[in-house]
């Protein structure tokens, strides 16, 4: 079981390393969306600090969605997805492995870029620290729930847009708790409660999303 999970991870990481272009696009997208906001709402530092947490979280959500439509579709296209589903190992593990790989490839870089953007938004060091923790807890949720959407929309016309439509509503709790934690620091009310709830939502997603995504994958391959 461990070997299987590791094989899925290593495979997806190797493939991502061979195709750095796709990977870079998602990160640039994150930076660009976040950079558009100060241009749209004006450069007033206090206001930027107010909206910063929310903007960065929304941008992270969208950047994660951008890459999700290809979570299964590339493998579906060349037939390797069928081979993976026909493996004696459980499909849930496959989905878990692929979501985890997606998080490592697309989620972790967001964590590395976010502090820089945080400075752009005039966030304090403490707020940036909490932003990092909230992204650390929150981005895996995006990958896990996104796996459900990617599995449901596998091989459909306009699957990418549909995926966004299906999955964004499910992201709302993560967005509220994640941005709220940073907001709490900015407003001086503390972040701990938000982070605990974000953690609870992560555990819940971890327990439920892979099963539903695995079921959806089997349905889509039928």
């Amino acid at each position, binding site marked *: *079981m461990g*070997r*299987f999970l*590791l*094989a*899925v991870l*290593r*495979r997806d990481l*190797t*493939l991502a390393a*061979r*195709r750095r272009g796709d990977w870079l696009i998602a990160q640039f997208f994150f930076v660009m969306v976040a950079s558009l906001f100060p241009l749209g709402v004006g450069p007033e530092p206090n206001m930027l600090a107010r909206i910063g947490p929310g903007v960065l979280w929304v941008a992270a959500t969208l950047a994660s969605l951008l890459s999700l439509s290809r979570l299964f579709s590339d493998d579906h*296209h*060349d*037939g*390797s997805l*069928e*081979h*993976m*589903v*026909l*493996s*004696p*190992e*459980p499909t849930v593990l*496959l989905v878990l492995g692929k979501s985890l790989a997606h998080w490592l490839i697309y989620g972790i870089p967001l964590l590395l870029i976010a502090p820089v953007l945080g400075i752009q938004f005039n966030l304090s060091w403490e707020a940036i620290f909490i932003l990092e923790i909230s992204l650390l807890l929150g981005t895996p949720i995006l990958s896990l729930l996104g796996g459900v959407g990617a599995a449901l929309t596998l091989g459909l016309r306009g699957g990418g847009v549909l995926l966004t439509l299906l999955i964004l509503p499910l992201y709302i709790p993560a967005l509220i708790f994640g941005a709220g934690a940073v907001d709490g620091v900015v407003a001086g009310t503390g972040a701990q409660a938000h982070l605990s709830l974000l953690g609870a939502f992560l555990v819940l997603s971890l327990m439920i999303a892979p099963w539903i995504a695995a079921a959806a994958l089997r349905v889509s*391959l*039928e």
Partner: protein
Amino acid sequence: MPDDALLSVHDLACARGERLLFKDMNFTVGAGELLLVQGGNGQGKTSLLRLLTGLARPEAGEIRWRGEPIGKCRDLFHAEMIYLGHANGVKDDLDPIENLRFAEGLQGRAFERERAIDLLQRLGLSRCLDLPCRVLSFGQRRRVALSALLLADAKLWILDEPLTGLDVHAVALMEGLIRDHLAAGGMAVATTHQALNLEGVKVQRLLVGNVAIPEMA
């Protein structure tokens, strides 16, 4: 049911969309046997193979492996079965050896590098071992997929048009591989449009669909 019927199909029905492709299908395949599935385009050959793998679910009826419905013994069945569909399952960004390594890992098995290289060479890929599969020809990529098939050591092969894109040598090679596989007690279910030379092999033929072949008058 005879003892050697490892794979058995009972009153199977299959629908695509709202069209019933076939119903009341019954057959058994035992060790050392090849089942050749025949029929015109759109008669449900591929659908039948996908049912047999467990990817699709039948409209009615049951498929059993070693006497148990495949839904009930999924892990065992998948461990003993390998499927090669229209798509090769070969990643373009990886070279053939890497492809085999990950294919083995995804089946939950350890990778035997020497054996993999040996197989790739036997299938005439010795000169492309370190090239990304993107630069290989269609037939060469098909051979990579066939190497993965051999490497898996599965009891049951389910092959959807395994000969597409292969040249004469490769077809002859494939015939030899199937013969060896069956002689060693393996079994296979295959569709093909090409004639196969399979002397000394126990072949069953199954006609899918209601239109007799040749379809063209």
